[in-house]
């Protein structure tokens, strides 16, 4: 059973190799750190004064500032859609369901692959943040990247908190992507909800709204919403699974 799950997850990983989801993970992770690095190198006059003290934390927070509120949840919405769409687009759900795999295996192995992609994106993002800082320090000694210590703990904690914050969205988007054959639908719904989250940010009930959680984490609005994100994740993941088991038509 466990072996089958490992092998099938491996098979799911193989499926998304060189697909749009795969490239999006790389491009999505690289976009902000590369742009920030380019900006530091090209415009030291603008950036050097602000980065005298603790350049690494400023750099890290600067990168997340652009990424956390919109780009990260948007990436999650896109990648979830794209992974599921691989089956719809190629008309392969039928073949997947005709293999001797349990419904749990099919549902959770694909969901796990989506999370592996998201985690890879986090790791790549942070790696590029580090490399960007190093490169900037090497090219321009006015930045004190090389002499300063890297705030590993902040990096890890912020990364983990943001990951927890998107868990709720992953479950909702996964269910939507499984149910809606046309990939524009989960994408459109996700985008609309994400924008709604940004609009209602000042509302006191916003902690119940999963699409606003990454912004709440970034602006350090407590950690209550992170627990809610876990609840959303657990509940929707289970509902989506029950729905998968009970579907009348597959593929």
């Amino acid at each position, binding site marked *: 059973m466990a072996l089958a799950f490992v092998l099938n997850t491996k098979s799911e990983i193989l499926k998304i*190799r060189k697909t749009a989801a795969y490239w999006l993970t790389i491009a999505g992770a690289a976009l902000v750190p590369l742009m920030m690095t380019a900006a530091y190198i090209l415009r030291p006059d603008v950036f050097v004064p602000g980065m005298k003290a603790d350049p690494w934390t400023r750099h890290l927070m600067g990168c997340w500032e652009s990424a956390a509120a919109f780009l990260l949840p948007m990436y999650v919405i896109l990648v979830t859609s794209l992974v599921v769409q691989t089956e719809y687009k190629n008309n392969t759900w039928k*073949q*997947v369901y*005709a*293999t*001797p795999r349990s419904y749990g295996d099919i549902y959770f192995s694909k969901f796990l692959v989506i999370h592996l992609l998201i985690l890879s994106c986090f790791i790549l993002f942070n790696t590029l943040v580090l490399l960007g800082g190093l490169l900037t320090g090497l090219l321009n000694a006015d930045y004190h990247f090389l002499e300063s210590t890297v705030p590993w703990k902040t990096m890890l904690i912020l990364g983990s908190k943001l990951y927890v914050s998107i868990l709720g969205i992953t479950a909702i988007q996964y269910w939507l992507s499984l149910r809606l054959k046309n990939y524009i639908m989960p994408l459109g719904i996700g985008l609309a909800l994400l924008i709604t989250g940004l609009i209602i940010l000042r509302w006191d009930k916003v902690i119940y709204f999963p699409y606003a959680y990454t912004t709440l984490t970034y602006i350090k609005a407590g950690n209550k919403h992170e627990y809610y994100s876990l609840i959303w994740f657990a509940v929707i993941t289970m509902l989506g699974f029950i729905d998968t088991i009970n*579907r009348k038509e597959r*593929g």
Partner: protein
Amino acid sequence: MLLRCKINRLIQNFKAISSPFQINFRATSSNSMNPLVIETQHLNFSFNGGQKILKDLSLKVPKASIYGFLGPNGAGKTTTIRLLLGLLKTQSGIISLFGKDFVKNRIPVLRRVGSLIEQPSLYPHLSGKENLEIFRLSYQCDRKRIGEVLDLVGLKDAANKKAKAYSLGMKQRLAIAVSLLHEPELLILDEPTNGLDPTGIIETRELIKKLNREFGTTIIVSSHMLAEVEKMATHVGIINKGKLLFQGELSELQQLKSKSSAIELEVSNTTRAREILQEHLPLKKVNGTKIQVAYESRERNGEMNQMLVQNGVQVYQMAVTQNDLENLFIQITSE
């Protein structure tokens, strides 16, 4: 209404003609040597409670047979196949594969089944080999099977090419390779020759026969072309509008064909012609200037002509009526 009459007439004809064969068939199917690999009992299905797609379908596919599942588009073939694979939820009736209830034994049953449903299910961004690897992991079979199935379907040279660069025939063959990875005892092929060129059709047919002959694989292959089924099937099931109209060995269907085909003669004097022919041949019917006689052989046709002419009856026209198997099929299935 007209159709129903036709069907009733055909069924009556069939019953009258083929009762000995039916007994024969029952005897083989209950024989322990040939247990049923697929058996459905009173399968009914409708989408969203609407019109019935399948009506009381009871399929019987014996072991080691090539079962041609024949019917026009929209007859319910794909629905039946989807039910057999659990892609649709059974609404009423029982499906057993290898003598086991499918719903309760989905995974162990699917381990013994290979399938190709409608168009090939492949990942175009991956090579043929990688596509096979994906399914190999799910079936947990040995890595050497990839080479073996590629060999079997003749795709060894294109193994590292991306599936999107494959021709339709190659895609179809790769999909068949996928279905063969785990050496299934039962192969379910839905319209495997759809969209193939004549060479592709022949190759696929030969492959199906080979699998059946060399590995004893039971194969159910759906098609809307009678001629194609006739060339490979040992058993046939004909479905129309969700109902099974005929089920039995191919020979039974062919028997039905020869018994129901006739020669139609247009003559100058039907009364006289009738007198002459009656002594030698059973007459089917007389209709104005035309007479119908049971078809036996070409030589017999020649003799018939000679007899009539020698006895002073002019023969204007002589033709085999359109009652061959192809037309039987059209008769059964057309409106």
